């Protein structure tokens, strides 16, 4: 796998290698056909599609990923791949390590001193945990939205402009454009356009979370990680975020951790089900990936009984 770093991101560098022709949603494909394909694909083209994905539109390729906190193994042997411009949901009972895994994708676990990662996590073929990789570069490309909305105690404008400013955008006019676009994409522009100078902390919880999304997309990442973004929000605000995710899907690859199965079923294209394995002798709780598939299959005909128990509400 050779990667030309100068290749524009709109072009799938691996597309030409792909021998399997498929109508899977591809970055360059028109949105309409992508939707049709998703609907038609179910069942019949499933195997074919999966083969295609693994070869072409893979963003992340995770193999044998384990996370340790000191001597304690928090997550064991996760293997999955994340497809381009899809929404992937991580579900599972609490303590199953889904957030821990998510935080590996932008090396947020680096901040925890005792945390250690084993296995490989490849982003477009490059191992993110290669010693030569700068975590700042990783986070520049892979944005994150947190469980609790965390706008900075600054104005709305300065919040969204924070990332672009770091990236060197200095001119006021340019910043204004970037901020407006990000806020429009986050469906927040109309609500805040008259009070951009006001403190972001004056916004409602749902608005704050959309502001955090706007802040994340203002730097044009390729991927947005969302860590239970709606858990602190009311149902109306949750619905707005979910709609927003559907809109963002056209431009971004999204991975969302959620404890809400309905949410995963509503928004995601693929779902990974994690559970927790309790070591009866030590009491250690280690998370593991049980099943990863298209969301329809996880919720209609899961391969593993544990998944079935969980999604039908018999467990968890």
């Amino acid at each position, binding site marked *: 796998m050779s990667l030309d770093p100068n290749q524009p991101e709109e072009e799938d560098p691996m597309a030409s290698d792909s021998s399997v022709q498929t109508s899977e949603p591809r970055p360059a494909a028109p949105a309409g056909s992508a939707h049709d394909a998703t609907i038609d694909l179910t069942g019949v083209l499933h195997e074919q599609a999966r083969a295609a994905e693994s070869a072409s539109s893979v963003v992340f390729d995770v193999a044998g990923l384990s996370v340790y906190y000191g001597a304690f193994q928090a997550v064991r042997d996760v293997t999955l791949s994340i497809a381009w411009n899809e929404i992937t949901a991580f579900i599972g009972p609490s303590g199953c390590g889904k957030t821990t895994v998510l935080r590996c994708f932008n090396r947020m676990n680096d901040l925890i001193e005792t945390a250690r990662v084993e296995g490989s996590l490849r982003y477009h073929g490059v191992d993110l945990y290669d010693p030569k990789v700068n975590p*700042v570069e990783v986070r520049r490309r892979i944005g994150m939205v947190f469980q609790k909305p965390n706008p900075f*105690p600054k104005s709305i404008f300065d919040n969204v402009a924070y990332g672009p400013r770091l990236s060197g955008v200095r001119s006021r006019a340019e910043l204004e454009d970037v901020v407006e676009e990000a806020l429009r994409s986050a469906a927040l522009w109309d609500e805040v356009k008259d009070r951009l100078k006001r403190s972001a902390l004056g916004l409602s919880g749902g608005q704050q979370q959309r502001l955090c999304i706007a802040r994340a997309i203002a730097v044009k990442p390729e991927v947005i990680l969302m860590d239970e973004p709606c858990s602190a929000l009311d149902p109306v605000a949750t619905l707005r975020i979910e709609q927003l995710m559907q809109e963002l899907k056209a431009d971004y690859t999204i991975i969302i951790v959620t404890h809400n199965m309905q949410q995963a079923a509503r928004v995601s294209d693929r779902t990974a089900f994690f559970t927790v394995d309790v070591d009866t002798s030590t009491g250690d709780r280690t998370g593991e990936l049980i099943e990863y598939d298209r969301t329809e299959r996880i919720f209609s005909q899961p391969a593993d009984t544990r998944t079935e128990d969980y999604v039908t509400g018999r467990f968890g």
Partner: protein
Amino acid sequence: MQTIADPEAGPERSALSATNGSVPDTAFRVLALASGLLVLVILALIAITTTQKAWPVLSKHQLDYFFSTDWRPNEQHFGILGFVWGTVVASTIGIVLAVPTSIGIALFATEVAPRRMRRTITTVMDLLASVPSVVFGLVGFLVLKPRLQNWYQALGRWCEGIPILHNVFGTGSSGTSLLTAGIVLAIMITPIITSVTREVFDTVPRNDKEGALALGATRSEMITGVVLPHSSGGMAGAVMLGLGRAKGETIAVTLLIGGVSNPQITVNILGPGDAMPSAIARNLQEASGDFRAALIGLGVTLFVITMLINLASRRIVGVFDQRLKGAS
């Protein structure tokens, strides 16, 4: 108003305080209250006794006492401005040197250093804070003074002829000077400012810090963008605390500031000066009459400055916190 501001006074509290049947309970309560009031009593006594003892000179000289630089005990003339100046200059040097160092150490401890090293840093700072003032004075006076003399003279010669600099770093220093006093003050207040700012940095929400890092900020950008703005109020409080300590520091300053009998307002920090507490320490033993009153008046001035610094720091911390909450 009172009921709102009294959230802890739940039902069980009022029930407890309302019981006045038991004698030991009442006695204990009164004892505790008396101890609490003791603080007020002592402060009042400090204010009254010292003012009373200083009154003969204060009433005679009035404002001239505070705004004159003419301190001639033999001629019964007492103007303390020269000492105030010495205290202000030495404290300012101390703060200017200590604040960046302390903030650097505190950031190093909270944001950079691994956990084990963090404990080493706190231990070192605690030990530094526990070194008695007189020991710094001793080391400075007997060991550093001769070396400083050479350095200062070299610095003074080097600055000769350069505008402003040759005023600030003038010649004629014996090693003990306003700058030496300022440096020792910096050493003494660094642990204090460090420990307070470290606590403040610890309260910055992890969530906010991660928010900045997730946007691709480097650590230093995260610090300047999130940690420092969030801590401005606390840092201001820490600086005021350091200032409060610096202005009253006595023994080390007495030994290292040079000690001139009638200090004037000068910008030459390589020259000797004198500070308010040092003047007291050096002279009160043998003083009597108006001289003693004038020296105690310096104590009164220090006391008043303490009150002012406390009130000011409350105000400043309040303003910063308000700004942080986004009231704009």
